[in-house]
């Protein structure tokens, strides 16, 4: 979910498609769930009056509900949808926060707009039109081609601990409202237990009620304890593999953010032990700091925050220890092999997501795909396998390519001359009007998560780019002053 990148403790092999370990897991899933072989009850389908439960009302749950009801409306089918969400996203403070960097990628902004979901300024806390890459040898600003704000920085909830009255509408609340406007019912209780009775999923809420449904959609995050209960349900579900991230919120005030961080997201490639990638995301009054690395903890966050590169971006006098809020949430780094069964489907982080980037974009893709299948193809395991699994597979295959792409980023983080080459070539591309911005577009898409990793990787091996890097190599091998290029952010 968090827009952070690159982690060396998770090698390419862990995502390889056909490892004996992975095949064994699939075999175990089949053994636990004989329906996997046959596709279960192939003719299960939604009809007028069908009852659907969506557990979790983050972006995945709300978007699923929105698209399900929207598509059902197109075919004249009336469905009853209950959204189980105990948290209140409109409440000020972190109680309704889904612990995420809160970046809506360029591609997701466009896809939502195409679907008729436009994000108003009350939701988007800052439009982002550039990335500034900071390294120990300099910084470079990479602008979006049309100088257009096409990335949105949002708050997922009511803001950090020091917020007593939110000045914004949280992203999650906005999407939830869209779903409720189409007729879904909000059930403000936590689901404690999931079971199956007569083939139908039954949810038991903390309030003691038990409800049977035609379809249950699991849209909780990986930090939710309920996911464990599905492993004992005999449907072949195994929780995703996760890693920790660090997220901090700093209050700077709108004026200071406008002056010092502007409309750019600031990303850092610094050779700090255990730190793979870090970003500062400007919002309305706050800056969100996101870190990814090995054994992430608060000490690593302190070390990063105290670097000269971070202090150069933040206002003079800024105190790294004066944070408004911080958390160490988990993110999904290896999706679920079988995120579906008869009458049950897992979407968003509880199923499959993109590696390190654009988790909300992946939630959109899986939510919409599951809704499409439920309305048009059925709710049997066979239907989900045939029509939903290809979308999940597409994301997971792309993640495998992403692992390779992130290895290259790791090399740049380790080798100073590589960082000099990157800065030199990118700066030349940015300074030159026109011309193909080969490296700039790769870095843009790596940072923003706007393009599939496969697409980025193909551009990485472009002969024209390799020639540009080769030309910059000789000068970059020589020692030079510490900062080659400093970009003033306006």
């Amino acid at each position: 979910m968090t827009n952070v990148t690159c982690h060396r403790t998770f090698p390419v092999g862990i995502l390889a498609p056909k490892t004996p370990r992975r095949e064994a897991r699939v075999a175990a899933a089949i053994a636990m769930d004989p329906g996997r072989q046959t596709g279960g009850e192939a003719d299960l389908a939604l009809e007028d009056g069908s009852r659907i439960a969506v557990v979790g009302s983050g972006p995945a749950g709300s978007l699923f509900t929105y698209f399900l009801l929207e598509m059902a409306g197109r075919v004249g089918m009336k469905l009853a949808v209950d959204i189980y969400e105990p948290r209140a996203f409109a409440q000020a403070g972190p109680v309704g926060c889904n612990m995420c960097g809160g970046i809506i990628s360029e591609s997701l902004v466009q896809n939502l707009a195409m679907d008729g979901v436009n994000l108003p300024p009350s939701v988007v806390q800052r439009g982002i039109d550039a990335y500034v890459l900071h390294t120990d040898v300099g910084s470079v600003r990479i602008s979006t081609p049309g100088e257009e704000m096409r990335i949105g920085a949002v708050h997922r909830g009511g803001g950090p601990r020091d917020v007593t009255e939110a000045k914004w509408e949280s992203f999650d609340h906005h999407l939830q409202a869209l779903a409720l406007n189409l007729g879904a019912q909000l059930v403000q209780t936590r689901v404690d237990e999931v079971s199956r009775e007569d083939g139908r999923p039954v949810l038991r809420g903390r309030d003691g009620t038990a409800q049977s449904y035609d379809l249950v959609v699991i849209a909780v995050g990986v930090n939710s304890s309920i996911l464990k209960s599905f492993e004992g349900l005999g449907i072949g579900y195994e929780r995703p593999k996760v890693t920790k991230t660090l997220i901090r919120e700093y209050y700077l005030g709108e004026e200071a953010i406008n002056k010092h961080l502007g409309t750019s997201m600031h990303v850092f490639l610094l050779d700090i032990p255990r730190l793979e990638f870090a970003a500062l995301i400007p919002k309305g009054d706050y800056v969100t700091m996101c870190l990814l690395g090995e054994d992430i903890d608060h000490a690593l966050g302190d070390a990063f925050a105290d670097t000269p590169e971070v202090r150069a971006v933040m206002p003079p006098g800024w105190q790294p220890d004066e944070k408004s809020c911080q958390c160490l949430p988990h993110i999904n780094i290896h999706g679920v092999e079988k995120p579906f069964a008869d009458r049950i489907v897992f979407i968003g982080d509880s199923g499959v997501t993109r590696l390190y980037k654009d988790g909300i974009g992946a939630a959109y893709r899986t939510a919409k795909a599951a809704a499409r299948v439920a309305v048009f193809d059925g709710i049997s395991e066979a239907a989900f396998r045939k029509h939903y699994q290809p979308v999940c597979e597409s994301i997971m295959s792309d993640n495998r390519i992403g692992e390779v792409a992130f290895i290259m980023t790791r090399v740049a983080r380790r080798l100073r001359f590589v960082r000099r080459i990157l800065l030199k070539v990118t700066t030349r591309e940015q300074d030159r009007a026109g011309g193909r911005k080969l490296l700039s577009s790769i870095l843009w898409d790596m940072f923003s998560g706007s393009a599939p990793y496969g697409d980025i990787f193909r551009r990485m091996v472009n002969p024209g780019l390799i020639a540009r890097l080769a030309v910059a190599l000789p000068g970059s091998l020589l020692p030079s002053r510490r900062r080659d290029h400093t970009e003033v952010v306006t």
Partner: protein
Amino acid sequence: MTGNGALGRVYEPGEVIVRQGDEGDCMFVIQDGEVDILVEEDGAEALLRVAGRNEILGEMAIFEHQPRSATVRARGQARILTLDKRNFLRRINEDPSLAFQIVEIMSRRVRELSQEVLELKAALSASGVTPKEPIRG
């Protein structure tokens, strides 16, 4: 319109967003404000219609290899989000339902154009002019 959270690009009053005859590789969604959609012929401009918030424009360029059929100009200050053809086509390959919105828009415009044709035909008849070719629906 130009707050921190405004997505898209702000066009000043009278600024051209796309010009008739230009090649098009994107479409647009109006985030705020209004735009004039104009057809230029023999140096004269005719206002086809005014488009407002949340409307999608320029979609024909996504499906046709034809120059832009009309000029789009900001009526007052307008904030517009650009949608890339490449991103759209890539997504529609995975998710055909993404075209629902476009098909709906095109369907509505055909309906509106049909209505306009009927009204023009009625106006011509009222003024005693008979169209040379019958209009087939």
